[in-house]
């Protein structure tokens, strides 16, 4: 695809550490390395999926890219400009190009505002539309996400989960962004509603040429909506590839285990499951070397001491000593 060739966001050595403090003087004794050195590019018009288990840092990654969290280190280059360390005023101008859709449609809408006010708020902040024009735009947005203009006068509690998620999407679209970071946008929804919202997101992408960073733990959903997929484990990316390559021939042992663990909705399917032992280690005290080595079936001596490099293999990326 030619669209893939233009980078929209380049992420270089992105890190987000949280200090662990101790004692009266709040001495920093250690860090939780929520995101620990990510390098990847989001291309214009694509959907990049980010998967991983809870605590792997995928949500932190999304928020750090949008500068909702201050990165500890690294660069986020948005159309040639580094967002990290940018003056707040400059950053605010760029903010309208990047919006977010949150997981919980019950918690991410202000219960005291009407739906119209919720959708209009970003336009007011960025002084984009006013008066009649603003109201017209709200009506338009509601229709774009499959609601009606008469919904603008209602409050969030009058809507079901799926409808609320549509309101959240309308709000994200209000500023005509280029990039939408969607953090688990369908995980709180029922199966029959989930597919409605997935279809809506895909339609909007076609209509407005949006770029998505789609964060989710449900691998089937991510596979369906994404062009490329990055797999995260303990704050690092272990593999990044075209979705078909990733699912057909996963390289990293963690990706292999993760894919094999997904229950298949087909009772006749043969299962060859790699069941991982143990739990994900604490990000405050990650294992030496490759962080996955204590649970890895292909663990070698080198894995216990040396962190594998992020290497390109046939147009895809993997961090594993097996492929260096």
């Amino acid at each position: 695809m030619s669209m893939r060739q233009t980078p929209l966001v380049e992420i270089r050595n992105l890190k987000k550490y949280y200090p662990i403090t101790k004692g009266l003087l709040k001495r920093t004794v250690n860090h939780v390395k929520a995101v620990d050195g990510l390098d990847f590019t989001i291309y214009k018009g694509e959907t990049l999926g980010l998967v991983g288990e809870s605590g792997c840092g995928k949500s932190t990654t999304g928020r750090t890219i949008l500068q909702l969290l201050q990165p500890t280190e690294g660069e986020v280059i948005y159309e040639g400009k580094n967002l990290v360390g940018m003056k707040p005023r400059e950053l605010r101008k760029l903010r309208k190009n990047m919006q977010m859709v949150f997981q919980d449609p019950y918690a991410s809408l202000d219960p005291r505002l009407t739906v119209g006010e919720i959708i209009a708020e970003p336009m007011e902040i960025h002084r984009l539309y006013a008066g009649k024009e603003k109201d017209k735009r709200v009506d338009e947005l509601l229709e774009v996400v499959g609601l009606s203009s008469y919904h603008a006068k209602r409050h969030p509690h009058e809507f079901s989960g799926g409808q609320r998620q549509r309101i959240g999407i309308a709000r994200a679209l209000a500023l005509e962004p280029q990039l939408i970071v969607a953090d688990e946008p369908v995980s709180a929804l029922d199966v029959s509603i989930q597919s409605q919202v997935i279809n809506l997101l895909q339609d909007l992408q076609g209509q407005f040429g949006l770029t998505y960073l789609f964060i989710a733990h449900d691998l089937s959903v991510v596979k369906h909506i994404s062009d490329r997929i990055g797999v995260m484990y303990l704050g690092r990316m272990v593999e990044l590839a075209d979705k078909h390559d990733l699912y057909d021939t996963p390289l990293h042992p963690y990706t292999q285990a993760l894919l094999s663990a997904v229950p298949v909705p087909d009772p006749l399917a043969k299962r060859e499951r790699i069941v991982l032992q143990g739990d994900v280690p604490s990000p405050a005290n990650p294992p030496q070397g490759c962080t996955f080595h204590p649970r890895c079936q292909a663990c070698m001596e080198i894995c216990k001491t040396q962190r594998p490099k992020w290497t390109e293999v046939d147009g895809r990326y993997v961090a594993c000593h097996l492929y260096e």
Partner: protein
Amino acid sequence: MKPKLLEIKGLKTYFQTEEGVVPAVDGVDIVVYEGETVGIVGESGCGKSVTSLTTMRLTPGKVVAGSISFQERDLLALSDEEMRKVRGNEMAMIFQEPMTSLNPVFTIGQQIGEAIEIHMQYSKQQARARAIDMLKLVGIPRAEQIVDEYPHQLSGGMRQRVMIAMAMSCNPKLLIADEPTTALDVTIQAQILDLMRELKEKHNTAIMMITHDLGVVAEMCDRVIVMYAGKVVEEADVVTLFTNPKHPYTQGLMKSIPRLNGTDERLYSIKGSVPIPGTLRKGCTFAPRCEYATDICRQEIPELNEIEDNHSCRCWLYEAKGEQA
């Protein structure tokens, strides 16, 4: 045919609310045979959890009709004291949230031991030893130390193992698992499902598995019951249900899930949303969302009919087996 372990007939559990009566469970029939795994599938608000809680007699709602017979005893007729002897002993339950269903101020050993002391008349020391054995059985490492730890010291997957250890400690005949892996990551889910399968085979425990995840159903269950708005809409063995679903709702569900080995084609979606319980009008509860709905669907509620051998469906599109021309 294996003997029937649990038979729920015409169960109706209603809740009295300020806005009126909410029929959460509205005429449900379920049979669980010994040693089998029955899946109960449906979306939020379809009554699957209330059905299981009513079976345990733990629901605050009112049972207005129906019977629940467990090992040929009518559970609804038992006194509270008699019911306590059944609950946790012959019939046990695992809940969705391992975080909130364990008591934070008691050690793991005390919590597992409680049921053992009550139901098996073990002494404190014996109960503790049995608790350690149970922890080992569910694959918890360092069981001798974990038994003295508190729930907050364990991860989500470990807590769910503790819940299973607790439920299995008195060798129940029936295990009711309400979304047992929904709060867990996939790799941990795979561990827990493996464990449940293993325990089921070892102890011949029947499992009533409540879930919305069709993948989990396909892997775990022998038979599946699909619920919608307080009623059973389809029932079949797992292979039949997945290869030949009949009810438009079941068909819609099957088509709307993205699959790992699927194509990139647009997903099917059932229009509209699940009706709010208590707001139902006459007719089939699925009719407002159904592609095939006709006048009769909007007027009269269809019966749950056996349309093929061991395959029942509540839909006007199909006639009962005997009535077919």
